[in-house]
């Protein structure tokens, strides 16, 4: 493996992981707030 392979691997883990964390946190928030709004309307 060349040095660039290690660099690309590290960036893929870092960037991909951060985006996954953001998407997970955002979808959990939206789900919880939607559930709260539905209960509030009842």
């Amino acid at each position, binding site marked *: *493996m060349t*040095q*660039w392979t*290690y*660099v690309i*691997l*590290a*960036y893929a*883990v*870092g*960037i991909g*992981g*951060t985006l996954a*964390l*953001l998407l997970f*946190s*955002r979808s*959990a*928030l939206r789900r*919880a*707030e939607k*559930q*709260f709004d539905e*209960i*509030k309307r*009842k």
Partner: protein
Amino acid sequence: MKSLEARFPAWQQGGARGNLYSAYMHGFANPTRFLSIARPLTPVLLVSGLLLVGIALYTGLFSTPADRLMGETVRILYIHVPAAWLGMAGWTSIAIASLIELVWRHPLAGIAARASALPGAFFAAICLITGSIWGKPTWGTWWVWDARLTSMLVLFFLYLGYIALADASQREAAAGRTGMSRVAAIFGMVGAINVPIINRSVVWFNSIHQPASITAGKSSIDGVFLWPLSLAVLGFSFIFGAVVLMRMRTLLAHIRIEARMRRMAMA
């Protein structure tokens, strides 16, 4: 089942609790006030964080030169260092929030501590993985049981333990028992002992890991690497802040759902 008012008295009392300092502290415990700040702050932190990280990583990949000794792999610095910083900062936040929760019984402090755990664990894991990727071409091995690497791995396991304990405390609180919350807070404070150990491990032990490049007021990193690194640290910190706010809002929404359902069941 214990009422929401009993678990979070300051929410009902509007912050007035005995003395002026306590009232000041608990004034911020009002969820409506917190949400009015957190809702607009979340996208600001997120967008500015993504922008700063984008600039830093682009510069790190395409504009900065290769290092004399490490070659191209030095570019891993812009992911690895912010992740290490946030892994340790995450636990420091848990410890401070836990202290505030225990001493001042500030209800949002417990939520802030719990909200910091997942992103903290995530960045500790990213630090370990990118460190391992960097170790292979630099040291010739993916992993060594070195003091710095091992203490960081211990931090990751502490995060897993804290997350399990905090989840258990939430279930206990829902059942009207609050003791577990204190256990999680005490664990959060005791676990903080590992943060200075990680920081000083390269000084106290013979380590394959390089010593600290940035200390108070001094840096051994050349300016050409330092400014994109500073941008990356700042940008990832903003993203961390945005995730903590999102998770705090999620936890608050769950607490409010629980309170509503309880009120509906009693009606």
